[in-house]
C-alpha cells in the first residue's frame, strides 16, 4: 500500500499529509494521508482505537498534531500559531455523545453558534434555527431541553446545530454508536439527506451496511494508518489486505453487517 491517496478531484477540499499524533508513548495516528474532494463522502472504518476519532478531532484542530499538514482549500490549517476559530466555524462536527448544551433549549442550541460566532442577530438566528429543526423533522421539539429528547432526536439536534453554521465540511464521529438500534435509522436518514445536498463528509462509523450504501470511498484504519481504501464494492466485496478481511469477518460474526 502506498501512503499517498489521491482523490477523484484535482483540488481536494480537505487534504491530510503525513498526519501524526501520539498520546504519551501511544501512537494513535502514524502518518495519515487522505484527500477529500468537494462533495465526497468518505467513511472511516476500523476497530476501536484504530485512530478514527482522533483523525476527525485532528481535522477540526481539536487535537494539535505532532507532525504533518492539513490543507483546507489549499491552506495549511495545522500551521502552528494559526488561530483555529475562523477555520472551525467552516468545519462542522457531530459527536458520538451528542454534546448538546443541556442548559439551553433545542432552538437555542442551534441558534447559539450563528449568534455568538457569526454575529447573527437573535431574531434571525432563531428563525433560521427553527427552519433547520423543521427540515430535520424536529419542529415540535423546538422548545424542549436536550434531556427531554430521545437519543435519536438529540443527535439530530446536534446535526442541526452544526449545520446552522453553514459548514463546508462535516466530520461525523460515530454518530449512531450511542443510540438504541431502532433510533439509528432516523439519524442515518439525515446523513442521506446531506449527501443528496452534496455535503462533503468524513464519517467514522461502525454501521457497515450504511457505510456501503453512502460512501464514495471507504478507508480502513489499522493502528493509526490507512491500511486500505477504495470504493465500497472493493473494500466489502474484495478486500486486499488480510487485516481488512479479518476486521470485516469479526463485524459479520458479531451480526453487525
Amino acid at each position, binding site marked *: 500500500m502506498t501512503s499517498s491517496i489521491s482523490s477523484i478531484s484535482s483540488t481536494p477540499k480537505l487534504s491530510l499529509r503525513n498526519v501524526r499524533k501520539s498520546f504519551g508513548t501511544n501512537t494513535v495516528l502514524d502518518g495519515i494521508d487522505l484527500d477529500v474532494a468537494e462533495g465526497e463522502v468518505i467513511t472511516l472504518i476500523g476497530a476501536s482505537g484504530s485512530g478514527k476519532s482522533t483523525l476527525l478531532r485532528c481535522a477540526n484542530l*481539536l487535537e494539535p498534531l505532532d507532525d504533518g499538514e492539513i490543507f483546507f482549500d489549499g491552506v495549511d490549517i495545522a500551521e502552528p500559531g494559526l488561530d483555529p476559530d475562523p477555520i472551525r466555524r467552516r468545519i462542522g462536527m457531530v*459527536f458520538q455523545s451528542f454534546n448538546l448544551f443541556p442548559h439551553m433549549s433545542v432552538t437555542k442550541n442551534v441558534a*447559539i453558534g450563528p449568534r455568538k460566532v457569526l454575529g447573527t442577530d437573535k431574531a434571525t438566528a432563531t428563525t433560521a434555527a427553527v427552519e433547520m429543526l423543521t427540515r430535520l423533522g424536529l419542529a415540535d421539539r423546538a422548545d424542549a*431541553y436536550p434531556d427531554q429528547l430521545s437519543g435519536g432526536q438529540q443527535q439530530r439536534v446536534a446535526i442541526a446545530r452544526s449545520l446552522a453554521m453553514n459548514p463546508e465540511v462535516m466530520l461525523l464521529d460515530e454518530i449512531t454508536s450511542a443510540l438504541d438500534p431502532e433510533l439509528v435509522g432516523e439519524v442515518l436518514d439525515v446523513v442521506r439527506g446531506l449527501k443528496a445536498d452534496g455535503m462533503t463528509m468524513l464519517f467514522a462509523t461502525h454501521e457497515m451496511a450504511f457505510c456501503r450504501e453512502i460512501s464514495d470511498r471507504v478507508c480502513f484504519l489499522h493502528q493509526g494508518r490507512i491500511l486500505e481504501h477504495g470504493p465500497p464494492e472493493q473494500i466489502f466485496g474484495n478486500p486486499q489486505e488480510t487485516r481488512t478481511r479479518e476486521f470485516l469477518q469479526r463485524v459479520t460474526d458479531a451480526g453487525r453487517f
Partner: protein
Amino acid sequence: MDQRTRRQAYEQRQRKRSLIIAFLSTSVVIGAIVVLIPLLPRWDRVRKSFFDGEIFADSFPRLLRAFWLDVQIFAWSVPLIFALSLAIAVSRNTRSPALFPLRAAAVIYTDVFRGVPVILTIFLIGFGVPGLFDSRAWSNPLIWGTAALVLSYSAYVSEEIRAGLEGVHESQRAAARSLGMSTSQTMSTVVLPQALRRIVPPMMNSLVSLQKDVALVSLIGPIEILRQAGLDKSKFANFTPYVAAAVIFLAVTIPCTRIADYLLNRERRRTGATAVS
C-alpha cells in the same frame, strides 16, 4: 377503568402504613423530649435563665433592630464575594503564560485565607489595616469587618466555583469550540452557566454560614445582634437574649436553605433531569 390493580392497592396500603409509622415515631420522640427534659434535676433554673418570657419580649425588638446591621453587612458582602470568587476561579482556569502571576496570586490567596480562621482574619484586618491611614474616616470597623468576611469567604466560594467549572465535561468545550467559539465565548456561554447551576447548593451553604459569621464582626466594635444580645445579657443577668438572637438567626437561615433546595429542584425539573433518591 377505575379498577386499581392488586399491585396498586398493595402499594397504597404500604404508603398509608409508612405514614402512620412516621407519625407515631415522631410523636414518641417529641413527647419524650417534652416530658423528659423538664424531669432533669436543674431544669427549672435553666428555664429561668434561658427561656424567660418577659426578658425575651423586652429584648426581642432591640435585637431585631441590631440585626438590621447584620443584614446590611451580609447584603454588601454577597455581591462582593461573588464577584471576587468568580474572578479568582476563572483566573485559575486560564492557560495563557502572561497570566501566570494572576494564577499564582489566586493560588496563594485561596491557600492563605482558607487556612486562617475567619475570626483571626477579622482581627488582623479590622485592627491592622486602619493603622495604615492617618484619617479617622478609614478606621470604620464596619468596612474592614466586611472586607475581612469578603476575603475569607471568597477563598471558599472560589474553590466551589472552580470545582463547578471543572465539573463541566470536556466534551461540552469540544462542542463549543467545534462551532468556532473562542475560549472566552466557550467559558461565558457554555461552561460558566452550567457550572453556576451546579454550585448553587454548596454556595447557598456558604451563604448560610456567612449569615451566621457576620456576627463575628461584633468582636471589633459594631453593635450588631450578637453584641446587643451580650449587652442585654449583662443588663438582665440572664441568657434569654442569646436564645432570642438564635431564634432570629434561624428565622432567616432556615428559609434560605429551603429556597436553595427549591431553586435547585425547579432547575432539575425544567431541564428534565430526574433526581435519583
